[in-house]
């Protein structure tokens, strides 16, 4: 179907397409062309990433590798795809495509006309970065792409200034914390490079394994260096991932960004952060050093994750802006992902990987539903949503369905994640974490139901503006994501197949 030649180039093309088309957008994107180019890029990338994931899953070794410039492995930059990043890649590409379709009307109402081409150029750079982080097999390349995506993100968040000037302060806060996080990652990579002399992730992992053998005997200082590097890396990534208590940048950034940006960020940016965490802990440093070295990192992660789940949900309950409710809910959901990979068993990891995907679908769709509200009402305060269930039946229905997914009602994608997560927690003997996850879903009931009650049982104010359902280009991607989040709850075979394959590769179990 696809020529072999082209198929071979897909890993490079996935990153290059949005990059080059982004530049072209910046050049000729005026006159409304920007969106069309962005849409084209997103669709191409999506098609490519699906093809790539299929290649990976059927490759036998579960890996596809691409050498940039044909430089041999430890010297050049390698793009290396296994089930883990193949899955995350597809998630990012799917969400990007859907949100780009959504963005057209939504962004046009929030960003001034003469900046639109700039918006879509940055939008594509953001995608470049996120896709690149996911796909690359080179630690330093990862840092660079992380910064590309972060810089694009800061700019995108700041573009919410047209609607609310607080977007700017949110953006600068995010920038300061994000840069510190990225610097920590850079420093951590430096330490690992110092020990291993390589930047290729697989090569680094192999050399570290060799070094670990000498631990405690010949050169104990390696241990300290590796652990220091890992500590820097982990803290840096946790900032990007918004793992509690390093989440403070997130609520405002999500709340005041343009609706489409919130949807994209909530669904992809933190997920990619989770991916980096998993990659560094499991593939590179190894759980022996990370969890059972000098520092029991997994205990820290579990405590953080537990706090994130409980406090994130609690704070979500207290908010009056629905976007902020979802933002705090994201913090809680990140807790689930972090908990999954801290459990260090197959079910836990599967839960983390599958929740990256499932939560991206759910939260992306819900932020889109709020985008419709913002598009029609101009804001997303809870009190203004009263009685909207009759005015915007489709969007609010989608929001409710997404809310059920957040709670983890059976036959939604969220339930599948929880299924694996709690099973993993019980298998690991962490009954308290299992309990926290379940209590977390109850707190989710409270904050979701608060909105649902307002939507369906509230009375619209006298003289409130008459609103009607959003245009079709906004509804289709929203329904697509919410529909997918239900579909993958009803039939989770594909997602769990990929996630389990990812978990097995990470744990070194032969499939």
């Amino acid at each position, binding site marked *: 179907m696809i020529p072999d030649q082209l198929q071979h*180039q897909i890993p490079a093309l996935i990153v290059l397409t949005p990059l*080059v088309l982004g530049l072209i957008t910046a050049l000729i994107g005026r006159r409304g062309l920007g969106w069309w180019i962005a849409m084209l890029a997103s669709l191409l990338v999506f098609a490519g990433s699906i093809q790539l994931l299929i290649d990976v899953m059927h490759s036998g070794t579960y890996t596809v590798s*691409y050498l940039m*410039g044909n430089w041999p492995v430890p010297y050049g930059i390698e793009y290396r795809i296994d089930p883990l990043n193949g899955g995350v890649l597809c998630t990012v590409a799917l969400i990007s495509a859907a949100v780009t379709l959504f963005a057209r009307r939504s962004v046009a109402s929030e960003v001034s006309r003469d900046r639109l081409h700039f918006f879509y150029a940055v939008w594509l750079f953001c995608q470049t970065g996120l896709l690149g982080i996911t796909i690359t097999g080179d630690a330093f390349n990862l840092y660079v792409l992380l910064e590309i995506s972060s810089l694009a993100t800061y700019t995108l968040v700041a573009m919410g200034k047209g609607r609310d000037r607080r977007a700017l302060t949110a953006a600068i806060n995010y920038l300061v914390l994000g840069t510190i996080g990225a610097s920590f990652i850079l420093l951590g990579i430096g330490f690992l490079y110092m020990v291993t002399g390589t930047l290729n992730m697989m090569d680094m992992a192999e050399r570290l394994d060799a070094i670990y053998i000498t631990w405690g005997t010949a050169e104990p200082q390696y241990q300290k260096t590796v652990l220091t590097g890992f500590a820097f890396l982990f803290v840096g990534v946790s900032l990007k991932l918004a793992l509690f208590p390093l989440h403070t940048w997130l609520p405002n950034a999500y709340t005041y960004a343009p609706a489409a940006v919130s949807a994209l960020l909530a669904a992809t940016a933190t997920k990619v952060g989770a991916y980096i965490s998993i990659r560094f802990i499991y593939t590179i440093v190894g759980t022996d050093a990370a969890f059972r070295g000098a520092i029991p990192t997994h205990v820290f992660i579990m405590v953080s994750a537990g706090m994130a789940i409980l406090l994130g949900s609690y704070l979500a309950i207290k908010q009056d802006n629905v976007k902020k409710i979802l933002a705090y809910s994201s913090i809680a959901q990140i807790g689930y992902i972090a908990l999954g990979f801290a459990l260090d068993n197959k079910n836990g990891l599967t839960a983390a990987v599958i929740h990256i995907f499932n939560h991206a679908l759910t939260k992306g769709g819900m932020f889109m539903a709020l985008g419709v509200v913002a598009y029609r009402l101009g804001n997303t305060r809870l009190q203004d949503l009263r009685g909207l269930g009759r005015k915007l039946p489709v969007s609010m229905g989608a929001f409710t369905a997404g809310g059920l997914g957040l709670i983890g009602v059976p036959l939604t994608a969220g339930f599948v994640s929880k299924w694996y997560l709690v099973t993993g927690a019980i298998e690991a003997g962490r009954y308290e974490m299992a309990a926290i996850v379940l209590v977390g879903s109850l707190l989710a009931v409270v904050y979701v139901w608060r909105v649902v009650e307002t939507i369906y049982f509230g009375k619209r104010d006298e003289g409130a503006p008459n609103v009607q359902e959003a245009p079709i280009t906004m509804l289709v991607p929203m329904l697509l994501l919410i529909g997918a989040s239900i579909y993958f709850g009803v039939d989770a075979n594909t997602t769990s197949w990929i996630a389990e394959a990812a978990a097995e590769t990470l744990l070194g179990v032969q499939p």
Partner: protein
Amino acid sequence: MKDLVVLRVVARWNIPFMVVFGLYVQTHGELGPGGGFQAGVIIAAGFLLYGMIFGAQELRRIIPRWVTDIAAACGVLIYAGVGFWAMGNGYEFLDHAALNPANPGGAEPWGMTLVEYGVGLTVAAVMITIFNEITEGTAPEDEPVNKDYDNPTEMDLPRR
């Protein structure tokens, strides 16, 4: 600042040398120390010096914003173009052997040179763009860019 004759004269003398030195670093870059990034910064520094002395408006007159926009994008496109050329010919992205299949080793400097020119162009253009972004609308064009430190504005005062 353009009324300060010393600055003006020194700048006028320096700027051509800076640009030429930038070009030297650029052309020398593929095998020795140097390359597109350094060259781009040096060349841009020449223009920025001009902008600082004669005002941002003046800089934008000689290099309009659309020029830097296009230059920045073109630079990256040159870079990517070299890569795509290799891809189109069945090589990996940026495999310079594609430029001269008969002698892959010999093609390396050619590829690097092309790529470095792209980098240089982009870096220079982006540096100027950043300067433009920051100065635009903040400093009225007829006032000097520097502050009057004897009469600090509210912004300059130290905070409690």
